[in-house]
Each structure stands twice: as C-alpha cells, then as structure tokens.
C-alpha cells in the first residue's frame, strides 16, 4: 500500500483535476515555487498560464477568481495564511456566495479556496493561527476540513468539481499526517464518517482533532466505548449520519478548534438535541471565547482544545445521567 502524506494528497488532487479539466487553474502567492509545498511540481507540468503567481492583492484576486468562474472556469486559490480569509470575507460572502441567488440562478461561481495550514502552527502567534471554518459554515459557504490524506484528496477533488464556492481548510495539525492509501477517490461533500465505532458516547471531532479524539478513545478503551464521528464537511453537515450515531450511543461530546461563541460545536449540539433525546447533557471542548492564540508554546497550547480536556469531557458526560 503506498504511503501518502496529507500535503501530497492535496498536490495529487490539484494535478488530477487540472489534467481532467482544462478549465481548472490555480492562483495564489508564491505558488509557482510552491512555498507552501502544496503546488509542488505543478508549474512544470501545467505551465505559468495555469499556475498564476499573484501580487499581494487578496481582495482583487479573490474577486478576479469570481469573475473567472462566472466566465466558465474553475479557479482554485491558495491562501498563504488562514487570516487572509478575514480580508476576503467580503469578496467570498458578499459576491461569490450571493451571485447565484441574487441573479435568480443565472450563474454559478465554482471557486475553491484552499487554506493549507489553518489553525495553530505553533510559534506563529496571534495573526497566523486562526481556524475560521465556523464563519463560513455560518454564512452557508460549503466548508470542508479534511482530517486524513485520503479525505484531503477526495474532498479537494469534490470541492473543485462543485458548482458552488467551497472553502477547504487543511489544518496545520494534519499536514504532516501520513497514511496508507490504496485508492484515491472523490469523497462526497456533506458526508461524514465514523472513524471508530463505539457504543457509549459519540465524539464529533473536526479536522486534525480527529486524530486526538482517536488517541483519547484508545486511552479510555477499558472504561468506555467511544465512537468517533468525523463530519469532514461542516457545511452542509451530515446531520443524518450524526443523528444515526448519537441515537445509538445516547451521548455527545464535540471537540472543535473554533472560538466557543457561535462556533461549530454549538450548532452541532443544538441540532442533535433538537432531534435526539440524549441520556446526558452534551459537552463541548473548544477554544475559549474570543481566543487570540498567544505566542509562547505553552500558552498557545493552553488555548487550543486538548486531549486532557476531551478526556475529562467524555468522562463527565458518562457520569452524568448514569
């Protein structure tokens, strides 16, 4: 079985889609030399017409991509830093996302926004450590956060093929994951998966936290049977898949690298309690309200959802209602 790294899975997805579909092209900062080591080799393979290095003009090139998509192409933008999404939130939300409805269905805006290295990259501090996927789920832009190399490949392929804008968050904490992958296939948007079967509690983990959740589940294996659900796409969310899991386990814990207020975890819990009668109060492990990641490594870690917190939340959830 070939071993594949998360980064190379992204590269393969880009290369395969560019080969399959002439209308796919890439733009971003320093992508010709592959500074983020994602577009590696693509300039040589596809030429400068399809691998565009842009000036540092995020707002203009994001809307440039919207226009190019209106004209029938499928642009993929690589963003160097997750917080650049704050700069272009207007261009994505107010234009790309709204055009189909506002024009009464006259157009589609198939742009993919790829953020390799979202979330904490230890040592990059306040302005480089955001993980703003909840914002995009809130506004209703298709939002995916792949946890594994196979999903990084499969979800990026599906994002590029999707007729709507899609933001692909590749968590910094997952970029170094490697896995044995047999088959590189598209992964449908909006479909979660059970990463580990269990019977006592469903843990929903987003992105790189899937790996933490699996580790915690193993640690607790002799006390509790944990099911780990990876939503993979946060918007549209696989509510039926999650409800199926929680209906069996009766308990829910969410671990989510968002700020607590209006973060994804809150929505997950709200929707599940609307649909399932739980045996215990649901729990969530998140960043604090209004988090700004401090520089010093110990502080940075203290603000991110950690394994001990998750372990404690699972145990609290089990004690409750039993």
């Amino acid at each position, binding site marked *: 079985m070939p071993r594949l790294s998360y980064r190379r899975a992204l590269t393969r997805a880009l290369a395969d889609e560019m080969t399959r579909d002439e209308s796919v092209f890439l733009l971003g900062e320093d992508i010709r030399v592959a500074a983020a080591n994602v577009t590696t080799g693509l300039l040589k393979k596809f030429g400068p017409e399809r691998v565009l290095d842009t000036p540092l003009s995020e707002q203009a090139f994001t809307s440039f991509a919207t226009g190019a998509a209106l004209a029938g192409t499928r642009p993929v933008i690589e963003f160097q830093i997750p917080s650049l999404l704050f700069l272009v939130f207007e261009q994505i939300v107010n234009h790309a996302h709204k*055009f189909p409805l506002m024009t009464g269905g006259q157009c589609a805006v198939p742009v993919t926004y790829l953020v390799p290295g979202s979330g904490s990259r230890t040592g990059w501090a306040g302005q480089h450590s955001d993980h703003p996927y909840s914002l995009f789920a809130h506004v209703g832009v298709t939002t995916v956060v792949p946890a594994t190399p196979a999903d990084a490949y499969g979800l990026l392929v599906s994002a590029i093929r999707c007729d709507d804008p899609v933001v692909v968050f590749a968590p910094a904490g997952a970029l170094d994951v490697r896995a044995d992958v047999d088959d590189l296939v598209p992964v449908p948007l909006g479909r979660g998966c059970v990463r580990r079967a269990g019977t006592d509690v469903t843990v929903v983990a987003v992105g790189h936290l899937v790996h933490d959740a699996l580790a915690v589940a193993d640690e607790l294996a002799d006390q509790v049977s944990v099911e780990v659900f990876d939503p993979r796409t946060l918007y*549209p969310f696989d509510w039926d898949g999650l409800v199926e899991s929680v209906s069996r386990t009766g308990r829910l814990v969410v671990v989510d690298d968002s700020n607590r207020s209006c973060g994804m975890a809150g929505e997950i819990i709200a929707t599940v309690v609307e649909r399932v009668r739980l045996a215990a109060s649901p729990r969530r492990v998140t960043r604090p309200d209004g988090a700004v990641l401090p520089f010093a490594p110990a502080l940075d870690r203290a603000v991110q959802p950690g394994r001990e917190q998750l372990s404690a939340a699972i145990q609290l959830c089990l004690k409750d209602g039993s």
Partner: protein
Amino acid sequence: MTDSDPVRLYRTVRLIRRFEERAIDLVRAGEIVGGIHPYLGQEGIAAGVCAALRDGDLVTGTHRGHGHVLAKGADPARMLAELCGRVTGLNRGRGGSMHAADLGVGVLGANAIVGAAGAILTGAVWARRRRGDDLVGATFFGDGAVNEGMLLEAFNLAALWRVPVLFVCENNGYATTMPVAGAVAGTIAGRAAAFGMPATAVDGQDPEEVRATCAAAVARMRAGGGPELVEARTYRFDAHHTFEHRVRLDYRPPEEVAAGRSRDPVDIQGARLPLSVRESVDAEVEAVLDAAVGYALASPAPDPATALEHLYASGLTARTGGG
C-alpha cells in the same frame, strides 16, 4: 459593431431618462420597494460607453446601475419587472434595483458594494480571452469608489496582466453627500497613471463625446493594449437615493444643482436630431415603457415557498429557519 448612429444614441439616453422617471413614479406608488438610486443626468455615460462596445463584450454596473443594464441591451420590461420584484424580472425578483443582472447580454450585474465589481470584471474578461474569445469589458464606478482599496488592487491586476478593461469613473462630484474635494487626495487620473494606465477625461454630459473617447480606447484595447481609465465628469440631477425625496439633506447649493441640470445629456444629444426624428423616438420610447410598466405590474410576485431557490448552483438545499 460599435454604433455611431446619433439616433440610436439618443434613443438610449431617452430610454434611460424615461425609465428612471417612471421608476421613480413606481417608487412613490409603492410598487418598487426599497427605492432606487436614480441615474438621471448621467445617461450619456452608459449610452456612450455601451455604444463603443460590441454585443459580446462584458460590463458591470453600480448601485446606480439601471442605465448600465439598459444601455447594454437588457429588456426594459424585464428590468422593470425586476425592480418591482416579480418572477418575470431579469433576476426572477431575487436581485432588485442594485443587483440587476443579465448575463445573456453581458451584464455581470449591477453591484451594490462600492468598488467591488472591477476585479470581478477583470477576472471574467481575462478568463474569456484566455479561452480565445475576442472581447473587452467596461466596469462602471463612481468617484467614491476611487478610494476603495479593492478597486485600486483591480487597477493593478488589470494593468499588470494587460486585461482589456475600460475603467469608467462616473465622477458626479459626490459620494452620497461627500464632495470629491473632501475625499480624493491627488486626482482620479493620477490613480490610473500610478499603474501605468492611460486616462482620459470626458464630458459625461455629451453622449457623442463619451462614445468617441471610449471607442478610441476600446480600439486600442482590441489591438492588444492594456486597460484604460475614462473619467466622465457628470452631474446627478436627482437624489443620491429616492429616500432623499422624503428627507431633505442639505449638501448641494441650489445654484450648483441648477447649473448642473442645465447641461442635460438628453437635450444635448436630442439637439443633434431633426425635431421630427426626436419626436418619433420619444413616442417609440414611451410605447416601450408603457408596455414595460404594464408587463411588470401584471407579472406575478414570487411564491414565498421558493425564497431559497437558486441559493446554490450545485443543487444543495439549505435548512429552513422554522422551529
């Protein structure tokens, strides 16, 4: 083909003028909700620019966008139906005055975010030309937009990548109530110069002058030239938005308004035609607009159950908001 026929140019300015006057009546009558940003006084710019373009060329308009959409060739009846929020509107009643779009005639939308459309148009023109289509684009914006970073970024991208986009600044002297002198450091042409883009100033009240200047710029662009800027000096005859019909804001001296209104693009172009021709065009325009108003008001309003239709082009359906 570019259209230098003075009658056609007159018909376009007259159509926009009377469309706007009738739209204002419909705002007063409560048929158009939310009001409009009237294009009255600026008609010569949309008419002149679009006369310099071909059918296949692309444009984007602004919040004050009815003139741009009409001049590029959208059906006035479906445009008016859009303003009235009817299913027969250009956008099926989902866009309204500030988002009217007709991709079929190359209008990628009026856009209500000041300064936002230039980059979108640049990307669209770039992508179509890369595919081998021989076309250019024109993007309209006001004097207020020249202080928006994203528009200046678009100037840079278009100039850097030599995308043939005509950046048309409609300088009507004010951004809402803010005079140009209070907002623009340097000059509008100077912003173009900074990116190595040629800039030409024109009298926006003279449709012929706008057409001739833009036709020359478009010819240079079609011959392989990069983007250019045209600053059309103009005057807005009416309110920034129809809300001003109810709330008087004191920012333009009456003498200035009178002087501005004395140079009327409809009269300037009309004076170039024999009176009989002018009268017959006027009658023709009235008939088109009578029919448009009839069509709009007779058209059904959309069914509330379809409010989320077209939200996603991929066919995704959103959860509704009820309990």
